[in-house]
């Protein structure tokens, strides 16, 4: 499939020849448009095309072509190797077993040309580390299937397993949810405007002038949200949860279920009349451009807006084990956390911890105990006086943690010991059933335990079934 892309020695392959066009495309087009504008005299009178108008786009284009020329990649057994760089050769080896997520990104221009970018995320890897931009779409899809099959310890030639669509977000609901969130901001702005108008009527005139800008900004925010989350579809497949979204440019993400570090459900105040909620998953990886040291989590929307029923179905896939029953903190915690006491609750069992926090909107966080990085107990002066303490269960990432807020002091003490011990057992159990450890098509090893009488069982397909049939 990818053999047509040239570069034959030792299985090395090149990116698609049109990649430089797409990579530099947007910038070059913008500069050319600007240059054209100034040439035609629309840009303010200084007519004539100067040499420096040309230099930048040409330099960008040449850099993109050179980059394409020196970049090559291949799948070498259990690693994906990418070599790039003209002066400073940069050779990356991405161990397939450590993959955290695979994304297929298609910006608008690439989509028009039938190209796609493959992004492989490893824990702690830089944003640009596992990028292959661009491949032809079939080649990218085939490579993704190959990487994910190898990741699960299957024969790399295994075709991409079939998927079952779990849910998709209707456009109306998406636009509505974004609009409601924006309305909240608008209401605050309006309140400020009223205050200003009362204080000084002259200020109102200035404010009225900026109303247009506020509307434009609001519309842009909504547009941005809608265009990136448009046609949001979540599908379950044996190699992970697949997410597809996007209006002009599309993104297809695949998250192996066992790589989920934490799941969060957020219920904003204004969405409550519609019983909507948002689901996010934390995957170890890199958050983007602000590159600090260490491993951070990538937060991915699992569901931008959905009903509780849809959320429950998705949660069953991301967290196949039974859920613990949360308990409330003691009543005296009301003195310490008067604004959030109404939501506070937490609970755990042998495999999963669940914590509810939040003041205005309710945050529910699930952390699989096998993914716990550390357990912390924090007790402030006021908490000590009330005999309370907060236990944090940290997952990989910056803010991914379940907070057992304001528990009784003695309970918190024993909770720390329990959680540490349970995490240890969960970790060992997970290590035993890890797909890499079993190394081979052993059907059912990674399958979630069957739960009878549960409608989600029809959604979570038996893992590896598709492969063993193939």
């Amino acid at each position: 499939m990818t053999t047509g892309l040239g570069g034959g020695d030792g299985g090395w392959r090149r990116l698609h020849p049109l990649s430089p066009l797409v990579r530099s495309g947007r910038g070059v087009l913008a500069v050319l448009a600007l240059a054209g504008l100034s040439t035609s005299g629309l840009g303010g009178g200084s007519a004539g095309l100067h040499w420096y108008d040309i230099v930048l786009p040409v330099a960008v284009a040449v850099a993109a072509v050179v980059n394409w020329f020196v970049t090559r990649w291949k799948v070498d057994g259990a690693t994906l190797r990418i070599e790039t760089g003209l002066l400073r050769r940069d050779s990356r080896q991405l161990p397939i077993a450590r993959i955290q997520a695979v994304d297929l990104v298609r910006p608008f221009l690439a989509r028009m040309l039938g190209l796609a970018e493959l992004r492989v995320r490893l824990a702690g890897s830089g944003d640009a580390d596992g990028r292959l931009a661009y491949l032809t779409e079939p080649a990218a899809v085939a490579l993704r299937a190959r990487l994910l099959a190898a990741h699960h310890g299957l024969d790399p030639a295994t075709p991409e397993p079939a998927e079952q669509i779990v849910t998709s977000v209707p456009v109306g609901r998406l636009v509505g949810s974004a609009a409601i969130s924006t309305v909240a901001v608008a209401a605050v702005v309006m309140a400020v405007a009223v205050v200003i108008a009362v204080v000084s009527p002259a200020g109102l005139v200035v404010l009225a002038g900026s109303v247009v800008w506020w509307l434009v900004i609001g519309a842009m925010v909504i547009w941005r949200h809608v265009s990136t989350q448009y046609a949001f579809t979540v599908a379950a497949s044996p190699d992970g949860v697949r997410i597809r979204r996007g209006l002009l440019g599309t993104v297809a993400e695949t998250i192996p279920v066992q790589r989920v570090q934490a799941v969060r459900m957020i219920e904003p105040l204004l969405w409550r009349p519609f019983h909507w909620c948002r689901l996010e998953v934390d995957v170890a990886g890199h958050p983007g451009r602000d590159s600090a040291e260490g491993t951070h989590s990538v937060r991915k929307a699992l569901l931008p807006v959905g009903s509780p029923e849809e959320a429950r179905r998705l949660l069953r896939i991301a967290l196949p084990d039974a859920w613990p029953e949360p308990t409330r903190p003691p009543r005296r915690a009301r003195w310490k956390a008067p604004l959030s006491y109404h939501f506070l609750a937490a609970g755990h069992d042998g495999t999963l911890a669940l914590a509810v926090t939040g003041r205005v909107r309710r945050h529910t966080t699930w952390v699989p105990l096998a993914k716990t990085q550390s357990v912390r107990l924090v007790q402030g002066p006021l908490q000590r006086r009330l005999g309370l303490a907060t236990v944090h269960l940290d997952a990989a990432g910056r803010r991914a943690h379940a907070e057992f807020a304001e528990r009784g002091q003695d309970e918190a003490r024993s909770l720390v010991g329990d959680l540490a011990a349970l995490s240890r057992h969960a970790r060992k159990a997970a290590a035993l059933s890890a797909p890499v450890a079993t190394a081979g098509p052993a059907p059912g090893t990674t399958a979630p335990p069957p739960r009878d009488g549960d409608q989600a069982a029809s959604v979570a397909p038996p893992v590896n079934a598709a492969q063993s049939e193939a």
Partner: protein
Amino acid sequence: MSPSPRLWRMRCAEVIASGGVLALAAGTAAGLTAGPGAAAAAVAVVIAGSLGALSFARNRFRSWAYTERDEDLIVERGVMIRRLSVVPYGRMQFVDVSAGPVDRMFRLATVKLHTAAAASDARIPGLEREEAARLRDRLAALGEAKAAGL
């Protein structure tokens, strides 16, 4: 286990040195502008402040404690806000040993454990150099032996 007693001596030296400089500056300034009585008062205030800082540093020093268990490391600290961290060896990403100029004068070092979670804090200050090296090697060995994937 707890940090070396030398950490307490180091804190004392820090407080005394900064308190002395501050007392000298405050005394000189007050003496030049408002006479010797004010100078004595200023010095007394600075000394009282330093004593307060010393007692706080004493409590803080005493609050540090760490325990090496079979599977995890427990670090306790804090006077006002009590904190206790349990970090499994298998979750360790890397170990940091650092020593600033003052630390080096007292032959001390700080050992810090990093996990993939930004929030986990397992830092042990004021370890004697040999103890820091021993702890670092032990943690590294245990981390490798018990390593767990993400």
